[in-house]
């Protein structure tokens, strides 16, 4: 975890940040931390983007860790069935 890249996700900027992450993580190590502590709500586009990012990470063998995710948001991810594709830390 010590060498993993950390990417802070801002409310409303999830999709662009994930796109950026795709670009950068292609050339970085096998772990990426997405810091969700500033995100309180996720919309349909955001959920699609996360699903898409999970597929991308799986293909790239990139371990994605979501940090500081709020429980309401976690539950939304649970409802679309993607939580097993990420790791979670506080």
């Amino acid at each position, binding site marked *: 975890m010590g060498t993993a890249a950390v990417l802070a996700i801002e409310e409303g900027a999830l999709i662009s940040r994930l796109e950026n992450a795709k670009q950068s993580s292609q050339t970085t190590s096998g772990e990426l931390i997405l810091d969700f502590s500033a995100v309180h709500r*996720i*919309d*349909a586009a955001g959920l699609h983007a996360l699903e898409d990012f999970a597929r991308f990470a799986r293909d790239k063998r990139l371990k994605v860790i979501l940090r500081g995710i709020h429980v*309401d948001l976690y539950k939304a991810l649970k*409802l679309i069935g993607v939580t097993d594709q990420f790791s979670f830390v506080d």
Partner: protein
Amino acid sequence: MIATETVKELPTPTPVPEPLSPERIDYLEGLIRRSRTAAAVFSQFTQQEVDCIVKPMVLRGLEQAQHLARLAVEETRLGVLEDKVIKNMVATEFAYNYVKDKRTVGVIREFRDRNLAEIAEPIGVLFSLLPITNPTSTVLFKCIIAIKTRNAVIFSPHPRSWRCCHEAIEIMYQAALRHGAPEGVFSCVESPTLADNAYIMKHKAVGLIDATGGPGVVKAAYSSGKPALGVGPGNTPVYLEKSADLNAAVVDIIISKTFDNGTICASEQTVVIDDEIYDAVVKKFEELGAYICNERETHLLEKTVIDPQTGFMQPMAVGQKAIDIARFVGLPVKPDTKLIVAPIRGVGREHPLSVEKLFPVLAVYRAKTADEALRICVDVNYAGGLGHTAVIFSRNDEVIRKFGVAINTGRIIVNSPGAIGALGGVYNDLVPTFSFGCGTGGGNSTTDNVNIYHYLNIKRLARRTQNHMWFRVPNQIYFNMNAVENLRQFPSQCTVIVTNPALEQMGHVDIVRRHLCPKTHIHVSIIPDAEPEPQVIQQGVEALNFYKADQIIALGGGSIIDAAKIMKLKYESPDADLGELAAPFLDLRKRVVEYPSGKPAKARLIAIPTTSGTGSEVTPFAVLTDKDRGCKVTLADYSLTPEVAIVDPQFVMSMPKGLTADTGIDCLTHAFEAGVSNYASPYTDSNAMQAIRLVFKYLPIAYEKPEDEEARSMMHNAACIAAMAFSNASVGVNHALAHAFGARFHVSHGRANALMLPHVIAYNAAVPAKFMPSPYTQGYVAHKKYATVADLLGLGGQTVEEKVALLIVATEKLLDRLELPRSIAALGISRDEFEKAVPEMTEIAFNDPSWRSNPRMPLISELTELFWKAYEGRGAFRIVPSPETQAV
């Protein structure tokens, strides 16, 4: 005009769906995925956000009511435009009126006095099947309650109402989207087929199916294996009873039966009319625009509108005007005929018009008596309308109640139109709906008008309740030497003294007699046996009745005092069934039997103990020996507690040494068990601890120097104080073991307790194999409480474990000093004999209610093990170290 297309809501054999193509599966998966994402987004919404979406949707629905009604009539060719407009308005305005102030997000209801809260959890994705008869109104209603409850819905309209439903869904969706609802919250299956429906119904992402439609649709929903809300078929019976307002009733029936040409499944089908008013009612129907068929016309009508093969209505007639149906049949009706009324003579296949008819044809039946009327209504109810709706017109409340009890329908509409009445909110306070739950009679899971609460998983947050506890003892306890003198302050016309022969010979009765009020008439009731029996009780009660006693003095040990308690109970409540009152219970406040209460007390009970052990003078218990049945019956109720206890040591100064030791250890066991009981409280703890301290200090002295007044007095007090503790905290496993062993081998109760005591302390102090559920305790504390006792006795030790061990050693030393047998083997009971008795004793001990308050739930194998430890005696126990080894 008569519709010629088939209405597929009618009962038909379940068709086997065609297999779906891969492209179609992709399409359906896309719909479901979109809905699931919408539901996930929606799950994050607040109540305020939800409510901000609902209101504009409702306004938009009201705005579009006429447009949608017109579309529905044009497409389905069923019903009446004007009525469909009203349905659309009811579906929006009335639904909103019901839901607007209801909480559907987060905590939706709180019951503070019960420490309960209800929390809403959305279902997620619903699959909703839509009908042909009420298409757009059903869409409007379901969209509103789905948004209010944060659910996404996939709609599948009936093929013959698809366009109008699709338009209604789109209008609702756009309104919701504009005000913040998640994208994809509503969707509509394009050209739905049975195979599509079957696929979606079984999909794991779909949480609930809401099937509004015919029996085929409902059956498919319930057969899918998914939770489903389904609407059953109707066949509404109406009882028009002779006390009714006839004019109002006939108008209401016409309103309802002609509303949207009778397409609402709650509408009236057969009106059962009392003989006395039949002609007047029929005439009134005719005056108000109904055509009354003669017998030949009725026969013609039934052949046309009812399928002779299936016995169900012909689809072509559904939702058509009366005039069109009449013309098709060939009835000579006037152009303004609203309704066709057909008299029938019974219910069932021989009377085809007695079934559901979703068009303006109404069957009527002349009932000779009120009982016949109810029977015919029940017949109609059972002829396809179970669980749905029934109607009664009457001014007689008793008749209305009787009808309500007899009829099995989810809605029983009184003095109002059935169809609109059942929708709720217009004529009554039923919950507005467009889905009628029909209970098990209709193959449904609910009889409710389906509403927001059926679209939610309602979670109950049950906080731990702080159960009320109690500490109840006699309000007057007199103690120390010559406390008996206090008898003088209790006025009495007639006092009965209950005692035994030995105490009378010892002069104890005379002492009591001397201290009673001078003018008191005194009768002495001698109980020869050691334990109270029903016959002795009966004799005592007879004496109380004969002397009209206003005071009972129980002078003796526990048995005498128990006998007096039961005599008083039977004296004041002769009908009390002692066998029933002794029924087992788990919680005193919730037990099944109720003791007599509220009766004025006929006699005051004063208990004067002559032993220092049982403490019966302050307990709510009484043990009765039933020799006929060969068992002991324990009664427990605070009403049994004596009003006054006089704890005077002069009555125990001559107690023999053995009895002093046995009763003293009984007292100590009461205190130990109450001290670690799950019912223990600070009130009982103080008594239990003090009693233990007194016993350890004074019991050896009272035993070794029986004449020591202080020791006798303190032991007498200790017994009473310990009894106050166990009266309120109960006892434990030690008593359960002692009861079983003592009864089997005729060993006195105190001595049997003594044989178990060190082993039970070790047992309770160890980590339980099984914890005892108890709302009264927080965590496991028995070992700590024993350690507290050790501290109180100044036994030393650093850790809890050490202190418990020292307490056990101190207890053993006390038993040794009292020269009590330290093992069952020492009583001369052979190993073989004991071994044979153990299984039965174990069973009896396990059935003994005493251990229910024990801190550790005894396993049957543990009871057996404890018996064997008691058999072996000293050193047989071993303390299992507790995980908590810290000092108290």
